C-alpha cells in the first residue's frame, strides 16, 4: 500500500523528479500491452452464451437480467467484468469465469461464443449432532460449532466448528471424544446439511486440586468445599466426581463463597488451568486463592439491621469493593430512608484500611425529620388532565394501607418532571416547562409535605403538511392512514420516530430489507405549524424463491407445510416468517424452530426461506405427590359429620403423554390420580389445529373415576366424550361435545334415607349432546383487573343419544372486574344453573345433580355442601338449580406481592328452579331453599403461578339440619313405618346439626 500512496502522492503533487524518470525510461521500455484479450475479442459480436454446468441455481430469466450483454451484442471487456461481478454478487457462486471461442460465421466474418463457467456456493441448511453424552447437550454443541443456519458454508469453517466443539467437550471432561463429520450437499438448492457424529468416550474424573496462594486452611477442607469429591454431606465417600463444565464452575463458586464467609468479601478463587492426565483419564484443577481483607461495613448516626445493610449496599451481592459500588450503596441508603419518610436523609461514607488485612467502610447517616407526602398538586396543565399525568409519576402521597409516608425523593421528583415533559413533547409541546414547588410543614403540621408540579405547556406545534416521497402514491396513501404525524396532528420527534418504525416495518415486511427512511421539516407559513417531508428509499425488492424445511424425522411434512404462510413469489416478510415460526411452535411438537434466509448477504431477488426444526422428545412423564386438608373427613360408612370434618387425603398422580402421535401433531395422554378420596384415570387424544384449522381442536376423552368427593355417596364413573373446540375470535370460544357416561353408585356408601336407596343406587347411563360458549375479555386470566368473563354451558340428555334419562342442564356464569384507581379492584360473579327433567328415570340421578359450595363458589360452605340435604341423615343430596353471587374488593395489603380481599358470597343450590329464593332465614331444619350469605376476609400472595389464596368466611345464616345418631346399620334397621327426624316429633335418633359459621379455604388462584 505504501508504494501506491507514495506514487500517487508524488503524482498529485506534480513531482517533477518522478516525471523526469518516467520520461527517461519511456523510450527504453518494450511494449507488452498490445496482445491482450481486449485487443483480440473486444467489439466482436456475441453469437452464443452458454453456462457450464447448464443447470444453474438461477433461472434463465434471472440470468438474462443479470448479464449486461446478450446474444447479438458486441463484446466489451468491461461488460465481461461486470457480468462476473453481478453473478458473484448474487452469492450463489463461489467462482465464475468467462471463456470465449471464435465461431466462423462464413461471409460476415467471425463472432464469439461465450461460456460462463460457474462453481456453486453451498449454504448451511442444518447442523445435526448425534451420539452426544450430556453434558454438553445437543444444542450447546450446535451453538459451539458457530455454524449459522442459512450462512455460506465454507470447508474451513468445518474444521473450526470441530475445534470449537472439541473445546466444549473437553470443558465437560470428554477429553478423548472424537468427532466425525459429513456434509450432505443438495446442488439443486445449494444446501449443505452438516452432520457431526460424536464418540464421547469416557468422561474424565477429578483427581484432586493443586492450590496456590493465600489459603489459611487445610487442603482437605478446600477440596470438600468444591464438592468435586464424592460425599454425602460431611461423609467423605471414596472416589471423585466426573468433570463437567457446570461442576467445575459450581465448585469454584462454592469455594469462593466459602472463602468469602466472615466478611472476606473480596476473596477470589481463580482457575488457572485444568491439567488432564491421559493414562488415568483424570483432571487436576489448578487454583489460585486470594482470601482478601476482612470488609467491615458500619453505620453511624442511625442504626440499620445487618440484613438491611446487606440488601442495600451492593458489595455483598457483587462480592467486590470499589468506590462505584459504595456510591451506589450510599444512594440506596438515601432512597431507602426517604421511602421511610426521611425525605431529608443524607448519607456519606468513608473507606479506609486500618490494618493490612482489614477494610472498614462507614456510612454516616443523617436521616433528619420524618415527613409525610400529604398531597401532590398539578397546576397549569390544560392539554392533559391531572389523572393522566399522575399515572406517569413515581411520587405517591401517603395512604393508609401501602405507603404510610408516601413516596418522595428529589431524584423521583426530577424523574417525574422529566416524564411529564416527555409526554408533552411527544404531543407537540416542544417548549414545555415543568417545575416544582415543595412546601414543608404544610398547614402547620410538622413534617407534612405538599408537592406542587407546575406545568407551563407553551404552544402546541402541529403538522401543517406531510409529503411522502419515494413510494407509489397508493402506498403513500395507505401508510398515511397509519402514521402519527399527519396534517393537524402534533409535531414531535417521538411521533416521527414512530412513523419511521411504521414505514420501515411495513417495507421490511413487504420484501424491502434495505428500505431507508429520512425525514426533514420546515416551518410552515402558519404559526406553530411545521411542514414535514418523509423520503423513503426502497432498494431492491426480495421475493421468496421457496421454503426449505429441514430436520423432520417423524413429523408429517404436510403438517409443517400447512403452518408456513410463505409461498414462492411472495415478498419476503420478516413478520410472516416469525408468524410461521410461532405457528410451528404452537403445534407443541418442536423443541426448536429456527428460521433464516439462505444466502443472507447475496444480492439476489429471490431467496429461499429456511426452517430447521428440532422435534421435541416424544414421551413425557409426570409424577406428583400431594395432600388435601379440608372438611372431607368422616367415615365412609358412618353417618357422623354430614357437614364433614377436617380430614387429610394424601394424593399421588402419575401421567404420561406422547406428543406428535404418528407424526400428525396430535397428543395422546394418560393421567392417573390416586388418593383416599378418588381414583381416576383420564385418557385424552387431542388433535390441536384440527385439519389445519388453527381455530379448531378435536379431543377424544375416556375417563374412569371412582370418587367420594361428595360425602353422600361413592360413585364410579365410566365416561367417553368427543369435543370440538372452535376459537371464534380472540375472546370467544365455542365448544361442541357429545358425552356418554355410565355412573354406578355404591349402594353401601349411600348415606341417605333407606327408602330412597333402591331408587338412587341404580346405575345410570347418560348420553348428552352439549355445547359451551366462552367469552373471555379479562385483562389477565390469572389475576384480573378489568374486563369480563361469560360462559354458557348447555347440555341435553335424550334417549336418542343413548341416555336412560332425558333432561336439560344449563349453567350460566358472568363475572366482571372493575378497577378503582390503580390498585383496587371490585370483582363480582354470578352463577345460575338449572336442570329440567323431560322423561326417563323418575328423578334426576344423584350423579347428575348440582353439588356445589366451597372455595370457588360459596365460601360459607365446605366443598360440595350447599343445597338440599337428606332429611334424616343430613348429607347433601344435590339440587336441580343453583344461584351464586360473589362480590370481592381486592386491594394491596403489604408491599407489592401481598394483597387482601373483602368478600361477600350469597346463594345456594336449590331443590328446583321454582324454589330459588332470596330469603335470608332458614324456615326449619328441613328447609334448604333459602339464600345463604357469607362474608369474610382473604389474603392473596402473588407467585409466578398465580396468587396463593387463603379465605376466612363467616356465615350468619349457615344451614341447620337433622343428623342421624347412629351407624348406617342402625339406620337400615329402623322400620320404614317409624317416623324419623320429624319436625313435629323429635326423635332421640336425630340431632340438630349445622354447617359451621366459620369456614377456612386455602387454594391457588383467585376465586373467579
Amino acid at each position, binding site marked *: *500500500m*505504501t*508504494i*501506491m*500512496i507514495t*506514487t*500517487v*502522492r508524488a*503524482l*498529485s503533487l*506534480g513531482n517533477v523528479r518522478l*516525471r523526469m*524518470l*518516467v*520520461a*527517461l*525510461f*519511456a*523510450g*527504453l*521500455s*518494450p*511494449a*507488452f*500491452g*498490445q*496482445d*491482450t*484479450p*481486449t*485487443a*483480440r*475479442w473486444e467489439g466482436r459480436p456475441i453469437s452464443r452464451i452458454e453456462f457450464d454446468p447448464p443447470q444453474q441455481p438461477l433461472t434463465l430469466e434471472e440470468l438474462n437480467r443479470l448479464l449486461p450483454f446478450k446474444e447479438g451484442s458486441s463484446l466489451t*471487456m468491461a461488460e*465481461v*467484468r461486470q457480468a*462476473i*461481478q453481478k453473478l*458473484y*454478487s448474487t*452469492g450463489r457462486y463461489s*467462482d*465464475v*469465469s*468467462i*471463456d*470465449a*471461442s*471464435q*465461431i466462423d460465421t462464413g461471409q460476415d466474418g467471425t463472432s464469439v*461464443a*461465450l*461460456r460462463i463457467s460457474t462453481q456453486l456456493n453451498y449454504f448451511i441448511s442444518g447442523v445435526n449432532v448425534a451420539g452426544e453424552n450430556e453434558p454438553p447437550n445437543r444444542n450447546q454443541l450446535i451453538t459451539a460449532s458457530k455454524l449459522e443456519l442459512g450462512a455460506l458454508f465454507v470447508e474451513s469453517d468445518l474444521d473450526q466448528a470441530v475445534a470449537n466443539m472439541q473445546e466444549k467437550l473437553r470443558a465437560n471432561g470428554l477429553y478423548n471424544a472424537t468427532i466425525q463429520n459429513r456434509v450432505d450437499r443438495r446442488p439443486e438448492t445449494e444446501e449443505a446439511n452438516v452432520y457431526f457424529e460424536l464418540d464421547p468416550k469416557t468422561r474424565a474424573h477429578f483427581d484432586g486440586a493443586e492450590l496456590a496462594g493465600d489459603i489459611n486452611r487445610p487442603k482437605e477442607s478446600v477440596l470438600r468445599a468444591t464438592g468435586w469429591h464424592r460425599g454425602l454431606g460431611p461423609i467423605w465417600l471414596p472416589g471423585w466426581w466426573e468433570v463437567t463444565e457446570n461442576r467445575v464452575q459450581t465448585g469454584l463458586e462454592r469455594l469462593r463463597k466459602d472463602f468469602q464467609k466472615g466478611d472476606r468479601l473480596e476473596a477470589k478463587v481463580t482457575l488457572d488451568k485444568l491439567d488432564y492426565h491421559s493414562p488415568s483419564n483424570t483432571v487436576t484443577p489448578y487454583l489460585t486463592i486470594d482470601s482478601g481483607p476482612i470488609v467491615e461495613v458500619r453505620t453511624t448516626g442511625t442504626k440499620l439491621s445487618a440484613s438491611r445493610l446487606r440488601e442495600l449496599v451492593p458489595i455483598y451481592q457483587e462480592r467486590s469493593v470499589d468506590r462505584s459500588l459504595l456510591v451506589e450503596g450510599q444512594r440506596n441508603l438515601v432512597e431507602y430512608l426517604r421511602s421511610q419518610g426521611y425525605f431529608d436523609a443524607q448519607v456519606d461514607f468513608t473507606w479506609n484500611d486500618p490494618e493490612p488485612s482489614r477494610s472498614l467502610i462507614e456510612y454516616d447517616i443523617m436521616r433528619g425529620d420524618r415527613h409525610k407526602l400529604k398531597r401532590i398538586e398539578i397546576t397549569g396543565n390544560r392539554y392533559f388532565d391531572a389523572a393522566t399525568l399522575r399515572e406517569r409519576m413515581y411520587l405517591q402521597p401517603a395512604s393508609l394501607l401501602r405507603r404510610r409516608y408516601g413516596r418522595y425523593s428529589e431524584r423521583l421528583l426530577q424523574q417525574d418532571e422529566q416524564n411529564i415533559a416527555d409526554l408533552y413533547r411527544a404531543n407537540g409541546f416542544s417548549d414545555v416547562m415543568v417545575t416544582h414547588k415543595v412546601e414543608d410543614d404544610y398547614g402547620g403540621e410538622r413534617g407534612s409535605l405538599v408537592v406542587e408540579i407546575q406545568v407551563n405547556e407553551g404552544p402546541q406545534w402541529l403538522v401543517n403538511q406531510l409529503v411522502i416521497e419515494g413510494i407509489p402514491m397508493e402506498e403513500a396513501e395507505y401508510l398515511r392512514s397509519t402514521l402519527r404525524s399527519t396534517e393537524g396532528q402534533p409535531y414531535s420527534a417521538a411521533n416521527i420516530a414512530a412513523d419511521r418504525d411504521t414505514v420501515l416495518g411495513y417495507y421490511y415486511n413487504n420484501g424491502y430489507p434495505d428500505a431507508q427512511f429520512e425525514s426533514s421539516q420546515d416551518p410552515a407559513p402558519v404559526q406553530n405549524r411545521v411542514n414535514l417531508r418523509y423520503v423513503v428509499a426502497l432498494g431492491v425488492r426480495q421475493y421468496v424463491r421457496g421454503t426449505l424445511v429441514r430436520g423432520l424425522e417423524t413429523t408429517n411434512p404436510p403438517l409443517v407445510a400447512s403452518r408456513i404462510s410463505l409461498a414462492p413469489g411472495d415478498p419476503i416478510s420478516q413478520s410472516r416468517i416469525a408468524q410461521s415460526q410461532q405457528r410451528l411452535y404452537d403445534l407443541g411438537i418442536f423443541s426448536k424452530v429456527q428460521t433464516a434466509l439462505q444466502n443472507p*448477504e*447475496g*444480492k439476489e431477488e429471490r431467496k429461499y426461506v429456511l426452517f430447521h426444526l428440532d422435534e421435541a422428545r416424544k414421551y413425557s412423564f409426570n409424577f406428583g405427590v400431594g395432600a388435601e386438608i379440608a372438611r372431607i373427613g368422616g367415615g365412609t360408612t358412618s353417618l357422623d359429620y354430614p357437614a364433614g370434618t377436617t380430614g387429610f387425603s394424601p394424593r399421588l398422580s402419575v401421567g404420561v403423554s406422547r406428543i406428535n402421535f404418528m407424526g400428525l401433531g396430535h397428543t395422546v395422554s394418560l393421567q392417573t390420580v390416586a388418593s383416599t378420596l378418588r381414583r381416576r384415570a383420564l385418557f385424552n387424544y387431542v388433535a390441536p389445529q384440527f385439519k389445519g384449522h388453527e381455530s379448531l381442536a378435536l379431543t377424544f376423552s375416556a375417563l374412569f373415576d371412582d370418587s367420594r368427593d361428595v360425602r353422600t355417596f361413592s360413585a364410579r364413573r365410566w365416561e367417553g366424550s368427543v369435543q370440538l373446540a372452535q376459537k371464534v375470535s380472540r375472546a370467544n370460544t365455542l365448544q361442541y361435545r357429545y358425552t356418554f357416561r355410565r355412573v354406578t353408585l355404591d349402594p353401601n356408601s349411600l348415606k341417605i334415607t333407606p327408602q330412597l336407596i333402591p331408587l338412587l343406587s341404580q346405575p345410570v347411563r347418560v348420553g348428552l349432546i352439549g355445547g359451551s360458549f366462552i367469552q373471555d375479555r379479562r385483562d389477565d386470566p390469572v389475576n384480573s383487573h378489568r374486563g369480563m368473563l361469560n360462559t354458557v354451558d348447555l347440555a341435553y340428555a335424550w334417549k336418542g343419544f343413548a341416555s336412560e334419562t332425558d333432561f336439560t342442564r344449563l349453567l350460566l356464569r358472568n363475572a366482571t372486574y372493575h378497577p378503582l384507581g390503580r390498585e383496587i379492584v371490585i370483582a363480582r360473579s354470578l352463577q345460575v344453573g338449572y336442570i329440567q327433567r323431560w322423561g326417563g328415570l323418575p328423578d334426576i340421578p344423584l350423579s347428575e345433580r348440582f353439588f356445589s359450595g366451597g372455595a370457588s363458589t360459596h365460601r360459607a360452605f365446605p366443598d360440595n355442601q350447599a343445597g338440599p340435604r337428606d332429611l334424616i341423615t343430613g348429607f347433601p343430596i344435590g339440587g336441580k338449580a343453583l344461584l351464586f353471587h360473589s362480590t370481592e374488593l381486592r386491594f394491596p395489603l403489604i408491599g407489592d406481592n401481598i394483597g387482601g380481599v373483602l368478600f361477600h358470597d350469597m346463594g345456594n343450590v336449590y331443590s328446583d328452579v321454582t324454589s330459588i329464593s332470596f330469603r335470608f332465614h332458614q324456615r326449619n331444619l328441613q328447609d334448604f331453599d333459602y339464600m345463604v350469605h357469607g362474608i369474610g376476609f382473604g389474603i392473596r400472595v402473588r407467585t409466578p403461578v398465580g396468587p396463593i389464596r387463603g379465605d376466612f368466611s363467616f356465615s350468619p345464616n349457615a344451614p341447620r339440619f337433622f343428623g342421624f345418631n347412629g351407624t348406617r346399620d342402625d339406620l337400615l334397621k329402623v322400620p320404614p313405618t317409624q317416623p324419623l327426624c320429624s319436625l313435629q316429633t323429635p326423635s332421640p335418633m336425630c340431632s340438630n346439626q349445622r354447617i359451621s359459621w366459620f369456614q377456612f379455604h386455602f387454594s391457588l388462584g383467585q376465586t373467579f
Partner: protein
Amino acid sequence: MLARALVAAGLILGWAKAETLDRIAVSVGQDVITESQVLLDLRVAAFLEHKPVDLSGAAKRQSAQRLVDQLLILREAVDSHVTLPATEAAAGLVAPYAAETGYKTDLVRYGISVQDLAAHLLAGLRTLTFTDLRFRPDVQVSPADVRNYYDGLARQPGSAAAPLPSFEESREQIEKLLLEQRVLEALDKWLATVRNAARIRYRDKAFE
C-alpha cells in the same frame, strides 16, 4: 445423427481453442477483482513507470493486494460518507502525461486506454484523500519526536562526513516526514483490521 456429431465435434474443437476472457482473481465479501483488472493495473503501473509489464505471479499478487486495499478504502469512504474527488478530477491527473511526447503511442503499446489511465490515477487520488481525511487529524508529532528523529539522524554513521543542516533548518521537513509516516502507519494498521474482517479469498489460478 452425423450432422449432430459434426456439430458436437465442432463445438469441442471450438472450445478447445477457447480463451479465458476473465475470471475472479480475488473476492472481497460480495465484491470481486477480476484477473483482467489485475493485468490492467499492472499495465498502467508499468506505463506510468515506463517499465516493461511484469506479469509474474508475484507481481500479479501484489497488484491484487493493492486493488483489494483500494476497494476496502472505497467501501469505508462510502459507508462513512467521506467526500472523495469526483470523476472530473481525473482529467487534471492525466493532463501532465497527455502532454508528453509519445503518449498516445505508449498507451497503445501498453494496451491501455485514456480512461484506464484516468481511473487508475483517480483511484490513487481517492485513496490518498481518504487517508488524509480519515487518519491525519488523529496523528500528532510532538517537538520531542522531531528532536529524537533529528538526533537519530545525527548519530547515524557517516553523518560526520556530510554534516546535517541545523535542527531549526530541518525541523519543518522532519515534522512533515514523521507526519506522513504516522499517517501511513495508521492506514496500514486500519487496513490490517479491515482485511481480517473482509472475507478475502485469492484464486490461485489467476496468479499463475
